[in-house]
């Protein structure tokens, strides 16, 4: 496998100038929401870093996270990340296959035991001993537990690995679980999103490589620099929300004027992610800017949180009890009324007319 020389040595080998690397570090600083002036410091730190081994395990996933990350094969600044790491195992991207690829993975894990970075995408099925997803005859559960033993840190890429994702949605037939439900003794970073913004994935990798540790995480294990604020907090349509100007249907007058999409089901207020600032497709746009409400894809259980087109103030599932409650209420009410009337009538019939003679007795 490739040598694990320093990044500076590798860049020199590839004929990448220091100026080009500085440009890359400027982009990384921007991604990590660090002060733009820190690019020089990042460059100096990264150039001396040894390329760590990275193992990428794909479990019960749709490959959307890998797709998000690798939009093309021509050298781009994002793909430079893959030169910063030594990606020793990745189903979709690696050239090797079959037993050779598995041997390569085992070798990397052994050689860099305790030091490699483990990236996981996809959820891990748990039901029936995890039989619902296997690689080379071994269950995902087994593979994860083995790989986690020698990992320095685990990065759960995508909502499936971070929280269970779509396989975990009701009724969860495979017993899909998140990485953090299974591994309890290693540091885990959750990069949630369906898929996550590619810049966020590379940004976290860059942070780990630059600073040698995990960034500050929120209570769900997501890096605060990308997930610290909600979409709503940074949405450019916020002034319309504050004024109560909402689009009522797709493509109506309000929608054309860029009004708030709350009534069309936007989950921006409850969703933590960087879509409103970092955006998608090289900062082109994000769902709300394109006229569709946020789905809330970086939050746990977002598939079970009701229709994507139901506003947050609307019920997330239809009401079942109302008709029965009405019938029950009416029935009990009638029952009580009948009881009261009977009481009244029996009191009336038990009424004994008294005369003055009775009273004198």
């Amino acid at each position, binding site marked *: 496998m490739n040598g694990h020389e320093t990044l500076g040595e590798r860049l020199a080998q590839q004929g990448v100038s220091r100026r080009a690397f500085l*440009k890359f570090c*400027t*982009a990384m600083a*921007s991604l990590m929401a660090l002060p733009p002036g820190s690019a020089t410091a990042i460059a100096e730190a990264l*150039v001396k870093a040894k390329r760590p081994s990275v193992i990428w395990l794909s479990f019960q996933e749709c490959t959307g996270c890998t797709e998000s990350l690798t939009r093309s094969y021509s050298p781009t600044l994002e793909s430079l990340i893959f030169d910063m790491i030594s990606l020793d195992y990745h189903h979709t991207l690696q050239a090797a296959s079959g037993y050779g690829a598995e041997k390569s993975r085992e070798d990397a894990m052994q050689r860099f035991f305790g030091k490699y970075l483990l990236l996981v995408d996809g959820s891990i099925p748990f039901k029936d001993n995890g039989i619902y997803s296997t690689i080379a005859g071994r269950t995902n559960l087994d593979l994860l537990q083995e790989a986690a033993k020698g990992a320095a840190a685990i990065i759960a890429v995508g909502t499936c690995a971070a929280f269970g994702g779509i396989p975990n949605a009701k009724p969860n037939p495979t017993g899909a679980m998140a990485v953090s439900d299974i591994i309890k003794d290693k540091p885990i970073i959750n990069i949630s999103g369906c898929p996550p913004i590619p810049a966020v994935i590379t940004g976290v990798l860059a942070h780990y490589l630059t600073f040698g540790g995990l960034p500050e995480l929120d209570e769900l294990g997501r890096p605060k620099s990308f997930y610290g604020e909600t979409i709503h907090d940074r949405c*450019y349509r916020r002034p319309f929300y504050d004024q109560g100007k909402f689009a009522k249907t797709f493509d109506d007058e309000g929608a054309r004027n860029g009004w708030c999409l709350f009534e069309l089901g936007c989950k921006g207020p409850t969703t933590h992610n960087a879509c409103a600032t970092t955006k998608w497709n*090289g900062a082109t746009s994000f769902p709300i*800017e394109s006229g569709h409400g946020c789905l809330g894809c970086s939050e746990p259980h977002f598939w079970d949180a009701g229709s994507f087109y139901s506003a947050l103030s609307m019920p997330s599932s239809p009401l079942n009890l109302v008709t029965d409650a009405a019938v029950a209420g009416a029935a009990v009410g009638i029952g009580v009324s009948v009881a009261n009337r009977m009481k009244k009538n029996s009191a009336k019939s038990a009424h004994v007319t008294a005369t003055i003679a009775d009273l004198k007795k």
Partner: protein
Amino acid sequence: MKSQTIPIYAQTDAAYSIGNLGALLSEISARLTNLAENGEAGMIDLNSLPFAPGEYEQLRQTLGQGEVSAHIEAIGPSEIIETGYPGVWWVTHYNVEGDIVADMLEIAHIPEILKSQAADIAEGLELLRAQLNDKGQP
């Protein structure tokens, strides 16, 4: 609502302001003051600021174009211009496919990226010396 009842209009490029621009210009002014009085450079990352459609263009128009424009080719193009306000540089980095990977205003005497880097100079010097040695050989 049936789709026939929603009228179809052609897309217009109507720009509207939400008020983000004023705040940004104030910050630029503060940093430029810092540069003028203390010689301290500063940077503002435009990627992290919310812009309504049209406000970004308004910023371009407001800052305008000065005397200097530079083009860098380093794993994709980068465009640098000095705006109409000397000391306020607009630096945009693109990747090979033309996506913006960094977009910032640099308030400095000259942007960092335009300076030749020490490591590159050292490498170039080595190559030049090797060339001279070759030429020196009969």
